[in-house]
C-alpha cells in the first residue's frame, strides 16, 4: 500500500511518516499491550492533499481494503445494520500541536448502524449517545467551529492541551428514560442542522463517505491559520503534514465496568514514584482535561476495577522500562477490558524532572551522567517555585490546570465586586469564577489568586493571571460557581464565599484551608544531583546551582558523552 499502513509491531517507519501518535501505538504493540486494531494514513498523503486540494488517487481503494481488514479482525461490519463497526479518526502529527487538530469518534454510526448497535447491546440510550458523540465531533471537524455547545450535546471545551482519549459528558438525566431519548434526538437534530447551515451539506449517512470527509477534515486542520501561526511561533516547518489514525472504537460508556482516563507512571507534580492520573467511569469522550464531568483520582480504579488496575500498572511498568523514563498514557476500559490508546514519555518539568532523573539513576535504570543531561538549567528555574507540600496530606477540593505558577492563599470570592470589597477590608482573596471577562478585571486585580471552572492555558483568565503575576488554576471539570448564592461546588462538596482555600498554579490543585507550602519540594534530590554534577566537572567550589549543572554538561560534552 502506498498511503496506508496497518498498525502493528512490524511497522518500521519513523514519526516523520507515521506521526508521533502512530509510532507510540507501534511501540505498544511491540510491548504486547492491548491496542484497538487500526491503521494509519501517512503524512505523505496529507502533503499530497495539501498540494492538490483533494485526497490522492488510490487512497479510496486503500481505505476500503484497510477497513475490510478491521471488519474481519473485529467480526463487525462498517456502517452495517448488524454488529456495526465504529472507528475513531484522530490526527497524529510528528510534533505536538495541542488543541489544534481534529478528532472524530464513533465514525460509522449511521442511522442504520446506530439502530443495529441498539439491538446488539439492548441499550438504546447508549447507541444514541454514541451517535451524538459522532455527530458533534464530526461537526466540529468539518465546520472548523466548536460544535460542542450546539444542542448542549457535548463537552468539547476550549481547554488547550488535550489528549484524544478522554472523558465525556456528565449530566446524564436518568439514563434510559424517555426524556433522555427526546433530549438526544433534539441534540442530534440541532447538530445536523448546524452542519447543513455552515457547510451547505448534510452529514453523510454513509460510513465510507463519513470516513473520507473525516480524513479530509483532519488533513485540512493542519493548515488552518491558527495552526500555521502556532507552527510559526514554535519553529515547526509547515510542510510536515499530519498522519491520520483510524482505530476500532472502544466504548468507555458501554456499561458499569467501562470508563476512560489518563495516567502518568509517576506523579508529574512531584516526580514521586506512584502512578498518577484521572479516571471517569461510564463515559467515553474526547478530552480528559476539558470535559465538564468530574473525574476521579486514578487510584479509585484499584478499588472499582482491580483487574483493569493491575493491567494498567503492568502496562506503565513495561512502558517505563522501554523509555527508561516516566510515561503518560491514555486508556479506555470497556466491559472490564483495558485498551491503551496513546503513549508518550512523561516530559516532567522542574522539581519533578529532577526527582525522576535522580531516582532513575539510583534505581540504576540510567547512569548518573544521563541523569545530569536530562536536567537543563531551565528546569532549575522552576524548582524553587512555591508548591503545596503534598497532595496526600492536603484536603484537595478540586483539580484543574495550573495556568500561572505559584501558591495563593485566600478567602473565596465568587464575584469581582465581592473580591474588591473583601480586599478593601484587608482580606486576602481568591477569585473563583466560571470563566473571566473584562467585567472581572477589578476583581482579578484585587485577588491574590484566580480559579476558573472553564478555559485552558490560553483562556482570558490565564492570560490576565500571568500579566498580573497571580497564581491561577483554570479548566476545572465539574466545578460550578453560583455567584448569586456565593457558593462553589465540586465533587459533591460545596463551599461558600469567605472560605479559606489555597491554590497551586503549577499542579492545578485547589485545597481547603492552609496546607503546608514548600519552596524546595525537590531539595534532597537536587542536592544529590548537583553533587554528581560536581563529581563530573571536578569543580567543588561554591557557586550557583545553574553553574554547577552547566559545568557538568560542559565536561560531559567535552568527553563526548
Amino acid at each position: 500500500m502506498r498511503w496506508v499502513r496497518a498498525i502493528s509491531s512490524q511497522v518500521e517507519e519513523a514519526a516523520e511518516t507515521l506521526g508521533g501518535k502512530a509510532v507510540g501505538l507501534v511501540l505498544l504493540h511491540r510491548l504486547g499491550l492491548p491496542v484497538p486494531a487500526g491503521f494509519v494514513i501517512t503524512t505523505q498523503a496529507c502533503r499530497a492533499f495539501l498540494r492538490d486540494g483533494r485526497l490522492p488517487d488510490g487512497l479510496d481503494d486503500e481505505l476500503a481494503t484497510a477497513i475490510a481488514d478491521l471488519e474481519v479482525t473485529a467480526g463487525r461490519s462498517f456502517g452495517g445494520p448488524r454488529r456495526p463497526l465504529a472507528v475513531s479518526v484522530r490526527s497524529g502529527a510528528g510534533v505536538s500541536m495541542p488543541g489544534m487538530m481534529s478528532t472524530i469518534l464513533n465514525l460509522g454510526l449511521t442511522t442504520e448502524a446506530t439502530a443495529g448497535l441498539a439491538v446488539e447491546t439492548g441499550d438504546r440510550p447508549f447507541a444514541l449517545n454514541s451517535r451524538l458523540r459522532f455527530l458533534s465531533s464530526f461537526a466540529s471537524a468539518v465546520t472548523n467551529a466548536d460544535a460542542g455547545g450546539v444542542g448542549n450535546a457535548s463537552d468539547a471545551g476550549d481547554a488547550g492541551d488535550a489528549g484524544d482519549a478522554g472523558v465525556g459528558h456528565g449530566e446524564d438525566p436518568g439514563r434510559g428514560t424517555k426524556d433522555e431519548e427526546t433530549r438526544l434526538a433534539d441534540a442530534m437534530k440541532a447538530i445536523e442542522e448546524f452542519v447543513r447551515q455552515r457547510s451547505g451539506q448534510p452529514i453523510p449517512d454513509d460510513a465510507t463517505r463519513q470516513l473520507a470527509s473525516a480524513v479530509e477534515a483532519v488533513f485540512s486542520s493542519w493548515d488552518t491559520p491558527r495552526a500555521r501561526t502556532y507552527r510559526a511561533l514554535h519553529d515547526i516547518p509547515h510542510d510536515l503534514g499530519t498522519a491520520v489514525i483510524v482505530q476500532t472504537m472502544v466504548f468507555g460508556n458501554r456499561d458499569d465496568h467501562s470508563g476512560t482516563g489518563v495516567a502518568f507512571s509517576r506523579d508529574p507534580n512531584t516526580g514521586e514514584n506512584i502512578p498518577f492520573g484521572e479516571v471517569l467511569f461510564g463515559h467515553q469522550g474526547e478530552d480528559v482535561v476539558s470535559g465538564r464531568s468530574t473525574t476521579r483520582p486514578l487510584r479509585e480504579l484499584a478499588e472499582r476495577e482491580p483487574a483493569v488496575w493491575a493491567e494498567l500498572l503492568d502496562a506503565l511498568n513495561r512502558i517505563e522500562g522501554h523509555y527508561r523514563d516516566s510515561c503518560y498514557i491514555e486508556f479506555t476500559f470497556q466491559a472490564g477490558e483495558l485498551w491503551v490508546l496513546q503513549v508518550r514519555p512523561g516530559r516532567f518539568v522542574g522539581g519533578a524532572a529532577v526527582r525522576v532523573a535522580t531516582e532513575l539513576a539510583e534505581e540504576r535504570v540510567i547512569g548518573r551522567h544521563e541523569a545530569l543531561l536530562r536536567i537543563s538549567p531551565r528546569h532549575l528555574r522552576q524548582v524553587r517555585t512555591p508548591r503545596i507540600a503534598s497532595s496526600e496530606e492536603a484536603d484537595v477540593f478540586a483539580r484543574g490546570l495550573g495556568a500561572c505558577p505559584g501558591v495563593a492563599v485566600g478567602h473565596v470570592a465568587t464575584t469581582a465586586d465581592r473580591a474588591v470589597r473583601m480586599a478593601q477590608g484587608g482580606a486576602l482573596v481568591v477569585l473563583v469564577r466560571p470563566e473571566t471577562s473584562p467585567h472581572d478585571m477589578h476583581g482579578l486585580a484585587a485577588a491574590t489568586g484566580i480559579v476558573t471552572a472553564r478555559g485552558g492555558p490560553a483562556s482570558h483568565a490565564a492570560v490576565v493571571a500571568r500579566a498580573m503575576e497571580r497564581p491561577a488554576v483554570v479548566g476545572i471539570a465539574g466545578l460550578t460557581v453560583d455567584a448569586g448564592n456565593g457558593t462553589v461546588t465540586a465533587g459533591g462538596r460545596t463551599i461558600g464565599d469567605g472560605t479559606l482555600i489555597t491554590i497551586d498554579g503549577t499542579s492545578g490543585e485547589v485545597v481547603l484551608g492552609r496546607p503546608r507550602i514548600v519552596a524546595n519540594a525537590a531539595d534532597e534530590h537536587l542536592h544529590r544531583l548537583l553533587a554528581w554534577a560536581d563529581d563530573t566537572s571536578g569543580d567543588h567550589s561554591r557557586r550557583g546551582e545553574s553553574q554547577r549543572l552547566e559545568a557538568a554538561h560542559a565536561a560531559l560534552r567535552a568527553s563526548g558523552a
Partner: protein
Amino acid sequence: MTRSETHTTNANLLVLHALRCAGAAGPARLHAFTGLDESDVESELIDLGAEGLVTRMSGDMPCWLLTDTGRAADAERITDELTSANARGAVEAAFDRFLVLNPELLDLCAAWQLRTVDGIMNANDHSDPVYDSRVLDRFADLDRRAAPVCAELSAALPRFGRYRDRLAGALDRAASGALEYVTDSTASYHTVWAELHEDLLATLGMRR
C-alpha cells in the same frame, strides 16, 4: 427605519455600554474606549448615576461600574440600536469570523507570556528580541486578518470603529518597545480584544 450608515450612538449610551464591555473603569479608560472627552464622559456618568444606572466605587482606584438596572437598561438600548440600524445579520456574520480568530489571538498572548525551549515552558522574560519580534509579527498578521472584521462591524454600527484604532494603536506601541501593550496594560491588545469580544456578546444578547 434608520439605515446603518447614518446611525450614531449617543454619548449617554456610549458611556453606559463602555462600562458594560470594559467592566469597572474610570473616566480616562472610558475616554479611550468611547473617544469622548473626559469631561463629557464625567458629565454622562453623573447623568447615568442620577438615573441609577451606574455607581461609583471608591477605594485605591476610584472607578464606575454598572448597577443591575444599568445592565438591564444597556441590554435593552443596545438591542434597540441593533434593530433600528438593521444590523443584526452583519454583526452575527462578523461575530462568526471573530470566533475563528479568537483562539489564535489567545494562543499568541500565551506565546508572548510563556516560552517553550527544549520542551520546557517558562515565563518569557523578554530577553530575546528575536523571539519577541517573531511573536509580534504574528500579532501583526492576525491584526491584518482582524481588520476586515472590524470594518464590517463599523459599517454596520459606527461605534465599533473605535476598536480598530485601539487595536492598531496597541500594536504600534508594542512594536516601538512598550511591551506592556501586548497583554499587560489596560489598553493592551489583549484587553481591547477581550472588550470587543464582550461587546459582540452584549450586542447580540448572547452569553459566553
